[in-house]
C-alpha cells in the first residue's frame, strides 16, 4: 500500500526519468543534425582546401595534354564538353517537360494525370547508370559511335521528371480565375494556355530547369557509355564524344600521382562551386516566383 506521499515521490521519480529521457533524445536529435552539418563541412572543406589552391588561369583555359607534362595542364576540354552536353540536354528536356506539364494540367483526365505522375516518379528512380546503358543500346551501338548528343539525350531523360514536375506544380498555382477570365473574353484555349497561363509559370519552370541542371551537370554514370572515349584537345563538336568534368574527376581520381590528384581536386572544386551556385540560384528563383504568384492572386 502506498501512502499519498510515497505515491507522489514515485510519480516525481518517474516524471524526472521521463524528462531525462526526453532531454536525452533531444540531445540525440541535436547530435544527428550536427553530424550532418559536420559531414558537409568536412567534405566541402576537403575539396576547397585541396582544390582551390590548384586553380589558375591555365587550368581553366588549357586542355589536358597527356603527351607533354612540361606544358601547363588544364581541363578546358572538360569544361567545354560539359557546357555543350548540358546545354543540349536542357534544349531537349525543357520543351518536352513543359509540353508534358501542359498536357497534365490543362487537358488530361484524372486517370492519365495519375499515370504520368507515376511514370515520372519511376523515371526519377531509374539509376543513372541504367539510363546511360539504355542510351548506349539505343543510340551508341547502332551508330557504332559515342557522341556528346547521345550523352545529352541521357541527361535529358534524367532532367525530364524534374522539369515536368516543377512546371506542373507551378501551373497548378496559376489561379483558375485567370483562365476563366481569358476564356470568357473569347480567347481560344491554346492562346490562353500559351499566352496567359504559361507566362505566369516562367519563374517556376526556370527554377525546375536550374535544379535539373545542377543535378545532371555532376552526373558521371550516364556519360560513361555515351561520351567517354574522347580524343585529346578541346572540341565543341557535339557529334563527337566530348570530355566532361565529372568524367575527368572520375578518371583522375584513380591515378595515384600527385599532379593528377591535384587536378582532380581542382575540377571537383569548380564543379562543386558551380552546383552550389546553381542550387542557390534555383532557391532564389523559387522564392521570387512564389512571391509573384502570391501577388497575382
Amino acid at each position: 500500500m502506498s501512502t499519498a506521499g510515497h505515491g507522489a515521490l514515485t510519480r516525481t521519480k518517474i516524471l524526472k526519468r521521463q524528462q531525462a529521457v526526453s532531454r536525452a533524445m533531444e540531445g540525440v536529435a541535436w547530435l544527428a543534425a550536427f553530424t550532418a552539418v559536420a559531414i558537409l563541412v568536412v567534405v566541402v572543406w576537403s575539396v576547397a582546401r585541396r582544390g582551390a589552391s590548384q586553380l589558375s588561369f591555365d587550368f581553366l583555359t588549357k586542355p589536358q595534354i597527356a603527351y607533354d607534362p612540361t606544358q601547363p595542364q588544364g581541363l578546358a576540354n572538360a569544361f567545354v564538353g560539359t557546357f555543350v552536353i548540358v546545354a543540349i540536354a536542357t534544349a531537349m528536356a525543357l520543351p518536352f517537360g513543359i509540353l508534358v506539364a501542359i498536357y497534365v494540367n490543362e487537358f488530361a483526365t484524372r486517370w492519365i494525370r495519375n499515370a504520368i505522375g507515376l511514370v515520372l516518379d519511376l523515371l526519377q528512380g531509374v539509376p543513372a547508370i541504367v539510363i546511360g546503358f539504355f542510351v548506349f543500346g539505343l543510340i551508341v551501338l547502332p551508330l557504332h559511335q559515342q557522341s556528346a548528343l547521345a550523352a545529352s539525350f541521357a541527361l535529358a531523360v534524367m532532367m525530364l521528371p524534374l522539369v515536368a514536375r516543377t512546371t506542373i506544380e507551378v501551373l497548378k498555382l496559376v489561379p483558375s480565375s485567370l483562365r476563366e477570365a481569358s476564356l470568357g473574353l473569347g480567347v481560344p484555349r491554346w492562346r490562353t494556355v500559351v499566352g496567359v497561363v504559361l507566362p505566369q509559370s516562367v519563374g517556376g519552370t526556370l527554377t525546375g530547369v536550374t535544379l535539373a541542371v545542377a543535378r545532371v551537370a555532376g552526373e558521371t554514370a550516364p556519360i560513361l557509355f555515351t561520351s567517354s572515349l574522347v580524343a585529346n584537345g578541346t572540341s565543341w563538336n557535339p557529334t563527337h564524344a566530348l570530355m566532361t568534368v565529372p568524367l575527368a574527376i572520375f578518371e583522375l581520381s584513380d591515378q595515384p600521382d600527385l599532379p593528377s590528384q591535384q587536378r582532380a581536386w581542382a575540377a571537383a572544386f569548380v564543379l562543386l562551386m558551380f552546383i552550389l551556385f546553381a542550387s542557390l540560384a534555383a532557391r532564389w528563383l523559387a522564392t521570387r516566383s512564389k512571391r509573384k504568384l502570391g501577388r497575382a492572386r
Partner: protein
Amino acid sequence: MRLGDFVLQGVAGAAAFASLGLVALIVIEIVHRARPAYSAFGFSFVYRVIWDPVHDVYGAGSYLFGTVITSFGALLLAAPLAIGIGLFLSELAPKGILAPVTALVETLAAIPSVVIGLWGLIVLAPFLRDHVDPALHSVLGFIPLFGQAAVGPSLFTAIIVLTIMILPIIASISRELFLAVPSELKEGALGLGATRWQMVRGVSLSYSRSGIAAAMILGLGRALGEAIAVTQVIGGGTEILWNLFTPGDTLASKIAANYQGTSGLLETPALLYLATILLVFSLITSVLAQLIVRHAARQHGAQ
C-alpha cells in the same frame, strides 16, 4: 480557333504519351540487349558467383551480395540519423539556425557522386583503414563481419559513403512529414502531460509511420543504384566474403567499372543482365514507395 487547340493538345499529348513510353522503352532496350546472356545462362546467373571473360562465363552472385549488404547497411546507419535530423528541423531547431541547417542538409544532397567518391577514396578510406576499421575489429571482431582490416577500399567504406549520400533524402522527407502532423494532435499530447519525446514517439512518429517507411524505401532505391561513388571506394572484389573490411562490388559499380569496353563475347550482354536486375530493383522500390504513400494518404484522409 479549333485548329490551335487541336494542335496544342496533340503536341502536348504526344509529349505526355512519349514520356509514358520512355520507361517502357528503357525496360525493353535493356532486356533486349541482355537477351544473349539470358539465353546462355538462364536464371542461375542471378546467384552464380563467377565473372570469367576468358571462358565467357558470368554470374551476378557476388554483385548481388555486395549490393544488398551495402544498401541495407547504409539504410541501417542513415535511417535513424536522418529521422533525428528531421525531428530536429521540425521540432527543436531555434529560429536562427533552422534556415541555415535546412539549407546545409539540402546542400549535402547536391554534392555530385563523383566528388563524394573522390573524397571517399583519398580522405575517408585511409582514415577508416587506419583508425576506424581496426577499432571496430578489436571490439566486434568476434562477429565475422568485422574481420581483419587491411585495405582502404572495402564494403565498409562503400557503406559509409552511401550513408552520406542517402542521408539528405530521408532527412528532408522526414522533416516534411513531421511538419505535416496536425498540431492539434501534438498539442493534445503535450497538454495531457507528455514529455517532448513521448509526444514525438506517440504522435509524430506513429502518424508519419508510412511516410517514413516510404522515405526509407526511396533512400534504399538511391543506394541500390549508386554506381560512381561506390565503384571508386569499394575495391572491385570478386567473391562473396563476409568480412566488411574487404573489397567487394555491387551491380551498379560492376557496370560502371567496365565502361571502357569488354573482351568476352557475352560480357556486355552479361553487364546488361546486371542492369536488368538493377532496373527491376529500382522499379520495385519506386512502386513500393508510391503504394505506401497512397495508402497513407487514404488513411489520413479517412481520419
